[in-house]
């Protein structure tokens, strides 16, 4: 937690101590607390957690898209070593969509229905490719579309509803990657609304982009198979907090936090052996509920006793490569324990 950004020379995005509060029924409630993240060049970091755990909120906070009554606080959000908190509003607009872009979950609703695809592209080019001449826009758009596997000839004057979901998601990725300066792509469940074959294509496209342009990505998903396929590192969130950070192999081989284990346990095996699926009991706590101990304690299969209900666990270094977990159990054990309690 105390590592300076300079320690990782290739670190492109670093978020420290992020806290986001929303106004909810007149009160201010925390949606994200003490969130930290570090992404290196060319690295894909997965952000997983159940619905409502604050994943989208994290991305929006990083991009500076939340406005009052939402409140965002942090000890620093660094892009290439530059603290975004100190950047002017104008500069921030240049960074958004310029060096830091976002892809949304629902491609159909992410395009203005009243604008042609060509016009939505032209806008991004005029904002982020100042050196490009207007008359070259269409050629550039066709090139960008080609890059995501779409032949855009004759389609620039079409409206979003004239494309399929999969095409739109590709187009959105193309729009997000239009800026030549792009460093980090924030992808919020980019494949959730797609069917499996299209999902595979889009994931491959993202991987290619990483290879080609050395893009770093934060990939939000609640699908652990996407994580296994795509990510280098994983951050597991629960109720607005980070509960575990691990390299992707480590996470699947040796999940440390009981929440991660239970998540993994809930994935059906294939082929399915016919046994009943494991389902996590309970539900994510409400945002306005103040829990004195561990927020996961009521649903935890490895509950230790009073300590879990009374003392909030801290996110602690528990191994090499930034391995961390926020569980009292990890505090008790001195080293990484092997998965023993029958995950899978």
């Amino acid at each position, binding site marked *: 937690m105390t590592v300076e950004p300079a320690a990782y020379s290739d670190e492109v995005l670093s978020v420290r101590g992020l806290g986001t509060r929303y106004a909810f029924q007149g009160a201010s409630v925390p949606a994200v607390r003490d969130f930290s993240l570090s992404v290196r060049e060319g690295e894909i970091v997965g952000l997983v957690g159940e619905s409502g755990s604050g994943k989208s909120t994290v991305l*929006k906070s990083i*991009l500076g*898209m939340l406005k009052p*009554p939402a409140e965002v606080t942090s000890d620093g959000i660094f892009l290439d070593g530059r603290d975004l908190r100190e950047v002017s509003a104008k500069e*921030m*607009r*240049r*960074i*958004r*969509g*310029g060096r830091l*872009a*976002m892809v*949304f*979950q*629902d491609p159909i*609703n*992410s*395009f*203005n*229905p*009243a604008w042609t695809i060509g016009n939505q592209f032209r*806008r*991004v080019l005029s*904002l*982020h490719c100042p050196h490009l001449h207007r008359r070259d826009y269409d050629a550039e758009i066709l090139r960008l579309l080609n890059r995501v596997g779409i032949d855009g000839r004759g389609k620039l004057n079409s*409206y979003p*509803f*004239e494309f399929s979901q999969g095409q739109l998601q590709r187009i*959105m990725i193309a*729009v997000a990657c239009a800026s030549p300066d792009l460093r980090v792509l924030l992808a919020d469940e980019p494949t959730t609304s797609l069917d499996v074959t299209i999902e595979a294509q889009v994931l491959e496209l993202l991987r290619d982009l990483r290879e080609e342009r050395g893009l770093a990505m934060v990939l939000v998903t609640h699908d652990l198979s996407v994580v296994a396929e795509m990510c280098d590192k994983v951050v597991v969130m629960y109720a607005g907090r980070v509960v575990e950070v691990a390299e992707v192999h480590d996470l699947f081989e040796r999940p440390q936090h009981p929440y991660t284990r239970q998540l993994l346990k809930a994935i059906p095996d294939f082929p399915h052996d016919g046994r009943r699926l494991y389902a996590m009991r309970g539900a994510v706590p409400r945002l306005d509920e103040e829990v004195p101990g561990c927020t996961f304690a009521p649903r935890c299969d490895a509950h230790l006793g009073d300590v879990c209900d009374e003392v909030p666990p801290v996110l602690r270094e528990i191994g090499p490569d930034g391995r961390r977990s926020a569980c009292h159990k990890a505090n008790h054990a001195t080293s990484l324990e092997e998965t023993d309690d029958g995950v899978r």
Partner: protein
Amino acid sequence: MLRLAVSRLLSAVPVLILISIVSFTLLRLAPGDPALLSAGLEASPEVLERVRQSMRLDEPVWVQYWAWLSDLLRGDLGNSYSDKSPVTEVIAERLPATLQLSAAALLLIVAVGVPMGILSALRANRMADQVIRVASLAGVSVPNFIVALLLVLLFGWWFPGLMPYEGFVPITEDFAASIQHIVLPAIALAAPQVGLVARMTRSSMLEVLGQDYISAARAMGVRESVIVCRDALRNALLPVVTVLGVQIGYLLGGSVVVETVFSIPGIGRLLVDSFAIRDYPVTIGVMMFIAIVFVLVNIVVDVLYGVINPRIRAGYEAGRS
């Protein structure tokens, strides 16, 4: 587009016929004898009977209706009982005042209601929004005639001389005086609708501002003012335009009261006056006129909606080719 207009027109015909039957019957059921009013109270029974016959009031209602309808299909609304001039002429003569009043009211509705709604949405749940919401609610809940009476009271009784509260000057005659005379009636006519449009605009704007494509535009680094004006406004105003179309119809209805209170010689006033003397051809003529305008405006709005909305437009274009 043309096909849509034609099909809507055709489907409006039965509606209009139904309206005509209902209003025709209701008028004949109303107490009061037009012949008596026309011939005078002291007319002898024989004279009265003759007058009644000349007005065809002695025939069964459905025969009268049929005669009226077949005239109507030839564009003839009959003649006024009182001065025997054609009803179409009487209406045409009174129409400019109503048009001017409705146009002024519509202008007020758009010029005040829409910006109020936008401001309210942009300041959602803050001070300005609360004030606007309370004001619109008050506006919506107070009927035209209360507003009209209050305005007359205010400018005719408490502060006389500030503002003309009576009469009408055609805009072609004296521009300044015309505007002055139309202000108060237009406010009375527009007040309930302004609140409605402000509320519609607010909710529609909030809905659009919550859409993903607005977030996407923000994530792209688009300036907030541009997002509001270019991305949000156009989509947010689509449903408002539809409501405005419907409101033109209500404006005509509201003009009946407002024109009466402010002594404006429009068709609303004509409706009231003609009914008072049981001048049935005029009364029903005005009613049908208002109904037809209402229907036409709605069709125009539907077609316009298609023109603004690319999705619907594309649908028709695809259907045509």
